[in-house]
């Protein structure tokens, strides 16, 4: 089952998110536990002090002969100040409640509250302090220790109670909690940042592979060459195998077509020559048919090459050397006509495609210019916007009227029957350029003749 593709997080996001969830959970739990433990420990220390106070209150008390309890002489000056937060009280059970007998001066005229469950817990453990929370006379939170015990010389039990303001404990616990939260948030952010870095570094080879594959596609590299970790090594090897297979298929196809076409050409030459040597009606038919066959072979050979190539425009070709070689070759071919080819091309200009194809396109256009033009051919290549290149070939021949310009590109159309050539030149140029996603435009040149402009994909230098 496929999930709806509303949100597809990247690998990096998945890893970071997972790590973040876990970190946040662990940090939150540890924060809660730490705060609770701190609070518990503080209260325990507080309770120990209260117990000590209660026990010394008990130890210092005495009973007079009338059974009245006398409190010990005071040691803690805080207990004498009204509402100071430090209190004690000596009481006796009175029904379900208690009645005070002696109390610290700090209590003024209020009393300490009995434990929330009355006297049950006190009676259950006589001689042991019971701790509970209460509200003090100044509405402060109080921690109370109450101990029910018997004093010698007195029949009814006596309750010794000591109390202390809990506010300092609460405050420090609060502060501890805030500090803990801040610490944990910083730690959490640090952890997530670390995970993020780890993921970027860890997935680095994947990004490198992506760049290399892009290089192979755009023709800047012919295979994936990087050194990859063991998980990616098989993928890189498979990619290389795929590229090699692709190239091999294209190459094989081209070779087959080429072999067939070229194998036919020498027999065709023999037939042509033989027919010329024995003139007659049969020879005429042979000559005409052999010429037609030659045209078909040439045409389909070029078409097959154009089709085989357009699928793998991985290579890139420097434009200037191609123009140089073609100018050199064509000036020799048209030496008797004394054609001069003046070509201009910036050094760093690259065609996104194969050298053979660029030679074929530009070669045919230049050849046409030499053939139909006068003595002067101008070729100009330049980079244009959006990774394209524009190649203009102009001649100083008679040029073409507008209605014939469109006709030129038609297959096999020969405009000037007096000039030698198969007439397939520009149609193969058209096929090749469209195979590369380019265009051929015809126009009039300022030199007086035809202007052919090829628009082709350029490659990064």
């Amino acid at each position: 089952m496929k999930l709806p593709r509303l949100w597809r997080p990247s690998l990096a996001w998945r890893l970071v998110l997972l790590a973040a969830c876990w970190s946040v959970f662990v940090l939150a739990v540890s924060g809660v536990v730490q705060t609770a433990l701190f609070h518990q420990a503080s209260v325990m220390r507080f309770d120990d002090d209260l117990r000590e106070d209660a026990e010394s209150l008990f130890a210092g008390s005495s009973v007079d002969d009338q059974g009245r309890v006398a409190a010990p002489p005071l040691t803690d000056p805080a207990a004498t100040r009204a509402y100071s937060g430090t209190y004690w009280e000596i009481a006796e059970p009175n029904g379900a409640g208690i009645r005070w007998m002696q109390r610290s001066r700090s209590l003024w005229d209020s009393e300490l509250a009995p434990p929330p469950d009355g006297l049950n817990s006190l009676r259950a453990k006589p001689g042991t302090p019971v701790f509970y929370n209460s509200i003090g006379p100044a509405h402060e939170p109080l921690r109370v220790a109450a101990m029910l015990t018997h004093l010698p010389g007195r029949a009814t039990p006596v309750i010794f109670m000591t109390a202390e303001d809990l506010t300092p404990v609460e405050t420090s616990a609060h502060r501890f909690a805030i500090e803990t939260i801040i610490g944990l948030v910083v730690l959490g952010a640090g952890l997530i940042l670390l995970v993020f870095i780890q993921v970027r570094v860890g997935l680095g080879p994947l990004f490198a592979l992506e760049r290399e594959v892009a290089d192979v596609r755009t023709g800047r590299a012919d295979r994936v060459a990087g050194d990859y970790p063991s998980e990616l090594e098989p993928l890189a090897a498979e990619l290389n195998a795929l590229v090699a297979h692709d190239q091999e298929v294209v190459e094989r196809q081209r070779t087959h077509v080429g072999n067939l076409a070229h194998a036919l050409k020498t027999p065709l030459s023999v037939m042509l020559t033989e027919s010329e040597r024995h003139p007659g009606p049969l020879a005429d038919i042979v000559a005409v048919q052999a010429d037609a066959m030659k045209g078909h072979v040439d045409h389909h050979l070029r078409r097959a090459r154009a089709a085989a190539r357009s699928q793998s425009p991985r290579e890139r070709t420097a434009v200037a050397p191609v123009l140089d070689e073609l100018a050199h070759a064509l000036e020799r071919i048209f030496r008797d006509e004394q054609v001069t080819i003046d070509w201009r091309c910036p050094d760093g200009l690259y065609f996104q495609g194969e050298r053979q194809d660029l030679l074929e396109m530009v070669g045919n256009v230049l050849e046409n210019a030499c053939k139909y033009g006068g003595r002067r051919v101008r070729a100009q290549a330049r980079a244009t916007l959006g990774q394209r290149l524009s190649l203009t070939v102009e001649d100083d021949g008679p040029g073409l009227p507008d209605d014939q310009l469109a006709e030129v590109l038609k297959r096999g159309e020969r405009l000037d029957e007096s000039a030698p050539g198969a007439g397939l030149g520009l149609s193969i140029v058209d096929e090749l350029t469209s195979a590369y996603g380019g265009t051929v435009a015809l126009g009039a040149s300022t030199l007086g003749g035809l202007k052919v402009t090829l628009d082709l994909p350029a490659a990064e230098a």
Partner: protein
Amino acid sequence: MRILLAEDDPDLSRQLKQALGDADYAVDHAADGEEAHFLGDTEPYDAVILDLGLPKIDGVSVLERWRRDGKQIPVLILTARGAWSEKVAGFDAGADDYLTKPFHTEELLARLRALLRRSAGHAAATLSCGGLRLDPRAARASVNGEPLRLTSLEYRLLHYLMMHQGRVISRTELVEHLYDQDFDRDSNTIEVFVGRVRKKIGADRIETVRGLGYRLIPLEGETESA
């Protein structure tokens, strides 16, 4: 006129030998690259018709060897492969003309006549300048025996510089000799061509004399016999 025909197809060879013989040429035939190279190396032919798809050594290699050895025989290449990449390779190797199979015999004969007429033309002396050689008859140049690939504008530039080696030549003078009258003369384009020729013959061979022009530098202690 003595012609070397290097072609491996027996039928085509027989036909061509006959046609060339009918046109009053003396024809030697070589059926493979080794034989063709040997014959071309030892016999004084006026022209060679060279098939590129020869057994043993291919035609382009045979041609390259001749050119490397300084042989300037006019060569007409014959091939079934008509793609521009192959034509360019042929001219790069030093071919003078190119004919794609299948062809008409008259066309072959016409091309051959043109080739012979050109090579028989005005016999100008070979120019040399410290490792640089320029043969105006074949319109070829080489540097230290390595054939140079020059387009006609580059060739004209080098030719003019070599005719006036050691002298400073102004841009205007170069433009005038490079271009025909009807060409637009832009002295900046000279820099383009000087740059290209420098790339091909070595940057230090053409010196820029500030404000004056260019000078071809003859290397010292080197004398070349034409």
